[in-house]
């Protein structure tokens, strides 16, 4: 397959059964994307495929051929500065153990782009595919509301 991940091209020979998640983690060493269930139930592996959020565990790596994959490592575009969503997660302490955080942030950025961050209730609904077992939901909603405003201004 020919994968374009965070703007870098990778030519790989893979098992046809390989998920995008396992290829990112085990072949490309992009371990920011996490495995929490491998069944599309928890959202920890959320990445962007052509700008839309997908769970990488239910996406075959082969399906990503010729499409742009963005992971948490590529969110800030290689800049030392954080994406407004990343900064908002720090400011609102929207994380504890940090394991679900990359998936939450990738889902949150997509949630704003989709226009699903207009109210707290809407954010709660559209962020319910990402489980945070530490229970940082109040901070996550506050962070997304904050970052959504800053993202609109950019």
């Amino acid at each position: 397959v020919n994968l374009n991940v965070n703007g870098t091209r990778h030519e790989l020979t893979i098992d046809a059964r390989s998920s995008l998640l396992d290829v990112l983690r085990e072949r490309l060493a992009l371990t920011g994307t996490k495995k929490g269930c491998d069944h599309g139930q928890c959202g920890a592996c959320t990445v962007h495929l052509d700008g839309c959020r997908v769970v990488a565990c239910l996406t075959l790596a082969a399906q990503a051929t010729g499409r742009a994959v963005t992971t948490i490592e590529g969110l800030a575009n290689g800049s030392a500065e954080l994406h407004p969503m990343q900064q908002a997660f720090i400011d609102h302490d929207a994380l504890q153990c940090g394991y679900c955080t990359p998936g939450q942030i990738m889902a949150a950025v997509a949630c704003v782009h989709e226009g699903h961050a207009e109210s707290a209730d809407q954010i709660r609904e559209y962020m319910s595919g990402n489980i945070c077992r530490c229970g940082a939901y109040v901070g996550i909603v506050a962070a997304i509301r904050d970052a959504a405003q800053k993202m609109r201004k950019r």
Partner: protein
Amino acid sequence: MTETAFPDTPRVDARDKVRGATRYGADQSQPDMVHAMLAIATIGRGKIEKIDTQAARAVPGVRLVLTHEDLGDLKSAGFLFHEGYAFQSFRPMMSPAVAYRGQPIALVAADTLEAAIEGAALVKATYATEPFNVTFDARPSDVIAQAESPLPQAIFGDRIAGDADKAFANAAIKIDSYFTTPPQHQNPMELVGTVAEWRDGLLIVHEGTQNTAAIRHGLATELGMPADRVQVVAPYCGGGFGQKNSLQMQTVLAAIAARRLQRPVKLVVPRAQVFHDTSFRPASRHRVRLGADANGKMVAAIHETDSQTSRHDLFPTLYTDLSARLHGIANFRGRERLVQMDTQTPGFMRTPWEHVACFAFESAVDEVAYATNQDPVALRLANDAAKDPITGKPFSSRHVAECLQRGAERFGWSRRSMNPGSMHAEDGSLIGWGVAIGAYPTTTVPTIARLRVSDDGGVVINVHGHEMGQGIRNVIAAAVAAKLGVPVESVVADLGDTPAHPQHLTAGAWGTASAVPASSAAAEAMLKALHDLRPNVPAGQTPAERLKAARQPSLEVEVRRHAPGQPDAVFDRLDHGLLAFAGPVFPDFVTFSYIAHFVEVRIEPRTRRARIPRVVSVVDCGRVMSPRTARSQVMGGVVWGIGAALREASEVDPRYGGFLNADIAEYVVPVNADIGSIDVQFIDKPDQTLNDMGVKCLGEVVVAGVAPAIANAIYHATGRRLRDLPIRIEHLL
């Protein structure tokens, strides 16, 4: 938030976490690494007669298949709660025995994960089955009273104060209620998993854990090698909640596979197998009898419990040790029994006994309030304890009344009408307001703190501790920074690394009350050492400036602390990776943390769906060291309470054994849309009787009392007293 003595600083590891840069156990990758997968038993109990691994071995890329026939002589690392290191004494694959459905029977290692998964699915076993039981419908011989068991009686015997049976018989108002709670699984987001590699006879293990010491000493026991040839590195844990408190099933298997193959092995246990390869919260049954006078003064309490354990271990309980301390009831009798079933050994899940005990007891207290027509807050205030009912010793601090009063004010409790079903929203929803209190014993563990400062401004503190999201790095950095007068960001807390420092299990919310006083004492010792180095320096000089002036590149100090009443010999236990906690009963006092939860429930008129738009929680945890992470801890605890009350249950089928809903879609945990507003308040009064920093415990007490506050609010909304968890929509129809 209230004003506190410690500043509100960001989580010290947040920047790495939001960039995906934090490395968890399974994020380790080595060149030439092999991936492993487990095959599991498909019967409820019995013995493997034949295991066929031919098809698995034939899969291209498979390098190794291990079964009980290949493992050779291995010694069990023993049960954590019985002077051992593992979550249970039974170790699968050390014999043909099958103790429960879901236990590992084979490991398949391959060049790729896909090949390992395919190989594991092709392992075929035939069994001789035996009868088994996974419910409370047990034989009488499977029911063990703790008071008549080999368990240490000072800790696990009956809890007695006064004559509860006589006082209950004579009470004007009698409540006699039964409660049940289901098995539940911790399900941290990080899967259980191991990366094991051998380098020159040294075994190096990367694994998300709360207890690197147990993994180190447990592996050394099982493999028959010296502990100093095992290194366990776990700077970060992707959630523990009690699940990762000891040696798991897969670690030794990964280590053996790595040794046989002379290659590093990564074994990540799939979510479905986590339900059977790790501990869980046991199912329990409670009978609570409360006697009161006509004004609601409680005079007698009898709390009797049955709790699930395994066939091979006694996982003991302390339900009534907690319920005895909730209120000032002079006559108390607590009796706890264990019921042996054919599952893996249950264990600790956040607030293991206290959440459950509070659900039963605080629900019953609400029944007393309604039986005596007393406001539930006023009733609790009138029954507050002046001293510990069990030992008669004073509490080192207890601010239950202040928690209740401040919570009632923040919540607007005075606007509550007493009668069930009397409050409605504009859309026709029933509104219920409920209250309950919670408590959790404060314990501490022996701690060695080593502090090093350098002339470049670097400050590194080594203490035992595992960062699993609770923010232990923040509280340690805050304590050291405050004492040394340096910025919090300049302090690095080096944790969870067995070669660097002796480690102890991080659990029971004892992290802060152990690590913070020791770290602070180390900083105090450092100030003295700096003073001795150069006695006459201008005020305001930083440690780095003093070192520079003395032409000394760095300086190191070490201090040792243990709990009041603990002998110095307790440090030997620390050296051997054994549990060494003390409390909540100390020689001169008794210490608990407390919380009051106020909950609003709304029941939709047509669907009868219960929603929780707001919660107010007021905590007495002593001094708050890190306001931001503490607040997050409380909110997380409330989310856990909501899950425990309304969502989570591991379903059991008596015909098959094991757990049926073994994935994270069918084991329903709270999601974002389930959570509304959570208002967190701290009393923030230091408990300097316990330690000079005045810190008690926080991470567990936060869950205690949420479930009964919800159940009590549902009663207030509907008039239905629901005594079985979880409470679901079908119970409200």
